Each structure stands twice: as structure tokens, then as C-alpha cells.
């Protein structure tokens, strides 16, 4: 069991400070993007992308290039490929994603088996190693958070209407295909940069769990996005502290704390659901100024 003084020692280490800052930003990003992705039913997309990213990393290792540099363009290409496949094949997106990610994962394992020196590092890829995060990594994710916040804030109307009904959105002037593509690319970038923190196996949790927790306790859309982002960031921070303190893998620690956050949100929602104010009046109870005029004659 670690004592509090060892926590202070750990917190004084620059690598730990970078890790905590990185975790906070990637967690916030995951929660923010996840709040939209879950409603758009893109949860499986982030999972598939995470697994497929292993191929990008493996290619980087095989070619002797920094895997992070390969990962970002790989994730964007993956997003564009899936988008085209869904649009052109007419097959269900989940089936196509399954095909692409199983193939990518198989190719990645074969590629990694060719690289003798990297076999030991596979656990970091699978479960994350945020302690290795650099200042340049931090700069990339901070810029990404700023870009995502700006884009989502300015396109909130488009994102909400697209989630409700694509035709409704387009009829009211939303460029559906452009926004759909922009969001998928953004999500791919977020998944790519978050892999360092949580690893390829747990990446979808980073996107899905905070968003589901936020949804349980939110009534308004901006409130939902904000709570999801805060849950994502806060849980990442706590999970990483626990990881540093007890010398445990970072990704699983973050996900366990996220799950605790989800349970807390579930408890709060169960308690508030019992208040009468949350019950919608029945159709016949709705006072209607024009009611008399509208009745059958």
C-alpha cells in the first residue's frame, strides 16, 4: 500500500506532471467527442478504430518511425476508408467495421511478430503507457482539444439536428455529409492521440463511459457535453494518480475510475427520477390555448 508521501514524490516528477496533464486533456477530449459519438451511434467506430490503430503502430515500428507519427495519419485514413465503404457498399456499418478491424488487428499481430525487439512492449500498446508522454505529445492534444471545442461549439446546431434526423438537418440547411465527415475525422484523431494513455483495447471506454454517465444526469445538450467532458477529464486524472501511486497500468486504472463515475451518475439519476417534475404530462393534460377551437365539431 502506498503512503501519501510517496504520492508527493511521484507528483514532483516531471514525467508524472506531463502524464497527469495529458490524461486530463485526453480524458476531456474523449468525454467531449464521446458525448456526440454515443448519440450518433458511433461507439463501435471508436472501438474498431482503436483496434485497427495497432496496425498503424506496428507499421511504424517495422519501418523504424515513431509510432505516434504514423498513428494520426493512419487513423484519419481509416476514418475516410470506413466512411467511403459505408457510403458505397450499402452494407451495415457495424458489419463493415468488424471486417476492417479484424483484418487490421490480424495484420498488426503478424507484423509485430516480425519485429523481435518489440515483443516486450506489446502490453504498453494494449493497455496504455501515459508516463511516456512528451511535451510535443501534450502540444498536439492541447491543440486538438482547442480545435474540437471550437468546431463543436460553432456547429452545435448542425450536430444536434444530424443526430436527430439527417433529412431534417439537410432540409434546414445543414451540410450533412461535410459535418459527418468532419466529425468522424475529429473522432479518429482523438482516438489516435488517446491510445498512448489507455491503449488500443480500452480506447472505446474513454469515449463511451463518460458520455453515458453524462447522459444519465443531463437534460440539456450543452450540459450533457460539459458533464461528459468533465467526467472524462476528472476520471482520467484520478485514474492516473492511482496508477502512479500503486504502479499499475494507466489505461485500466482510468477505465475503472470511469466506471465508478458512471455508477455515481446512475445513482444520481435514479434518485432524481423519482421527483414528480420529471414526469411528462399526458397528452390530454396539456393545456392548449387553441384547444377549444381544435376540438372535433
Amino acid at each position: 500500500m502506498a503512503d501519501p508521501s510517496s504520492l508527493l514524490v511521484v507528483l514532483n516528477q516531471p514525467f508524472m506532471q506531463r502524464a497527469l496533464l495529458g490524461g486530463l486533456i485526453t480524458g476531456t477530449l474523449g468525454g467531449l467527442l464521446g458525448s456526440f459519438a454515443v448519440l450518433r451511434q458511433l461507439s463501435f467506430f471508436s472501438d474498431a478504430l482503436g483496434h485497427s490503430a495497432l496496425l498503424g503502430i506496428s507499421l511504424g515500428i517495422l519501418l523504424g518511425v515513431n509510432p505516434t507519427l504514423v498513428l494520426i495519419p493512419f487513423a484519419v485514413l481509416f476514418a475516410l476508408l470506413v466512411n467511403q465503404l459505408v457510403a458505397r457498399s450499402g452494407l451495415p456499418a457495424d458489419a463493415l467495421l468488424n471486417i476492417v478491424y479484424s483484418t487490421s488487428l490480424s495484420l498488426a499481430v503478424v507484423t509485430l511478430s516480425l519485429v523481435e525487439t518489440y515483443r516486450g512492449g506489446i502490453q504498453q500498446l494494449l493497455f496504455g503507457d501515459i508516463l511516456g508522454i512528451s511535451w510535443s505529445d501534450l502540444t498536439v492534444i492541447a491543440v486538438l482539444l482547442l480545435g474540437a471545442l471550437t468546431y463543436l461549439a460553432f456547429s452545435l446546431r448542425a450536430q444536434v439536428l444530424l443526430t436527430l434526423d439527417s433529412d431534417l438537418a439537410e432540409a434546414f440547411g445543414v451540410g450533412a455529409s461535410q459535418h459527418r465527415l468532419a466529425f468522424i475525422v475529429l473522432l479518429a484523431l482523438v482516438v489516435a492521440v488517446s491510445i498512448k494513455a489507455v491503449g488500443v483495447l480500452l480506447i472505446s471506454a474513454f469515449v463511451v463511459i463518460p458520455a453515458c454517465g453524462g447522459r444519465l444526469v443531463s437534460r440539456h445538450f450543452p450540459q450533457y457535453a460539459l458533464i461528459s467532458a468533465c467526467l472524462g477529464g476528472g476520471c482520467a486524472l484520478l485514474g492516473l494518480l492511482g496508477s502512479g501511486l500503486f504502479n499499475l497500468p494507466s489505461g485500466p486504472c482510468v477505465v475503472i475510475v470511469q466506471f465508478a463515475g458512471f455508477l455515481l451518475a446512475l445513482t444520481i439519476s435514479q434518485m432524481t427520477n423519482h421527483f414528480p417534475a420529471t414526469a411528462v404530462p399526458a397528452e390530454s393534460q396539456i393545456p392548449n390555448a387553441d384547444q377549444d377551437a381544435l376540438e372535433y365539431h
Partner: protein
Amino acid sequence: MTNSDPVLLVEGLSVRRGERLAVEQVSFQLARETDTALVGPNGAGKSSLVGAVLGLLPRAAGRVQILGHTLGPAGELPRAVRSQIAYLPQSLALQGRFPLTVSEFVGHGFDLPGLSLAWLGSRRRSEAVQHAVQRTGCHDLAEFRLSALSSGQLKRVLLAFCVVRPRQLLVLDEAQTGLDAPSSERFQELLLELCRQEGWTVLQVSHDLEMVRRSCDQVLCLNQRLRYSGAPNHVLSAARLVELYGPSVVPYRHHHAEAIAVDGIHG
């Protein structure tokens, strides 16, 4: 554009869905402040036609002009024209606990197309939302989630979404689907009331032929091609409906007018 110019002009419109032409060489126009119904059997191309008119589907041929502006090949219209169009789908993809309240949703109907921070709110916006929910009888629902509403309530909210800003053209794609008879009747009455107040020009896809006969100024009978068009009482004769829908249509006598049953369910 003058008052006598049509709000919607469609010339030689063809729409391809996969291998086949779903709509072929259809031409019609909607005069200002008229209510036009688009009827026809399932698979007749009604939704394809509506989709192409709104710019949601590509056209194989033909021209669409809305408020004097020609619709571009990929559905492009000037922002000012697009903001004059409202559309009511059959339903919305609402999952449980969808975190969006009625007033937030209606507020997005007030905002103009394009990137903006209008959702942060303004006094004018919140007044417009409040007025819209009052007029559609949704004021008690304003702070409830959309996903908690019944079908009838949701249709009223969709009307509030349309009425929150002045518009000229309203397109409804089987908007009364999922409503029971009294709710459908109330929805139609509310729609007519709002049309009178707002001066909307309406194009509505409907299977309710009795409602079409009673409320609409013009009816377009579609089955890939435009088979008949004109005033409902003139066009919706029993013989023409049997020709349009097939022998499953059973004309019968109502107490005040000839009425029609399609597939055993009268309109």
C-alpha cells in the same frame, strides 16, 4: 419575385433510386399560400420526389425552383432561401434519455443555417421559442426531454420548430404517421390554423385521402409519373383512385361525400 410567382416550381423532375427511376418527368407548381397533397401507393416515389425537391436526393433530370431560386445540383440554395423552408419528417431518431429539451430543440429551429454560437441564446431567440411553444400547445412540455414525449406531442413540437421563425414553404413527409385518429385530426387542425396565420405554402405527403379531400387545395396523384393533378373533389374520383392504387381501394359513401378506403382502412 411577385406574389403571383409560384413558391415551388418543378419541371421535368426525374429521380433515380438504385437501378430504377422512382420519379419520372414530373412537373407541377405550388401557388402561394396553398395546401397541396401528394398521394399515391407505397413505392410510388412520393418520398423520393420530396427528397429531390428539398435537395436531399440527387436529380436524374429536371429543374426545381424555390422562391425564384434554382436548386443547385447538390441541393444548394442561398442561405436566405433555405431558411424559408421547413420540413417535417415522419419521426425523429430519438433514443432513450436523449439530452435535449423541447425548448432547446425549438431554439435550433430559430437559428439560421451555418456555423454560429446562436445556441448560447438571446432575448429575441428565447421570446420566439416561448411564443412558438405557446402557439402549438407545447408550453407545458418546454423543459422536458424530447425522448420523453408521445408521438402526438412530438408532432406538435416539430410544428413549433417550424413556426418559431417566419417561413414560406412547409414540406411534410407523412407527418401524421403513428398518430391515432383523434390526434391526427387535431394535428391537421393545428396545421391548418398555423398555415392561415403564417401564410405557409404546404406540400404534404399523405395517405389520408379523406383529409386531403377536406383540407387541401390541390392534389398530386403520383405513381412514378404524375397521373392526375387538380382540385381534390375533381381528381379523387373512385375510378381514378382504383386506377392509381389498384383494386384494393374500396370506394364507399360517407354521409356527406364519397369517401375512399385504401387497403381496407378508410382515409
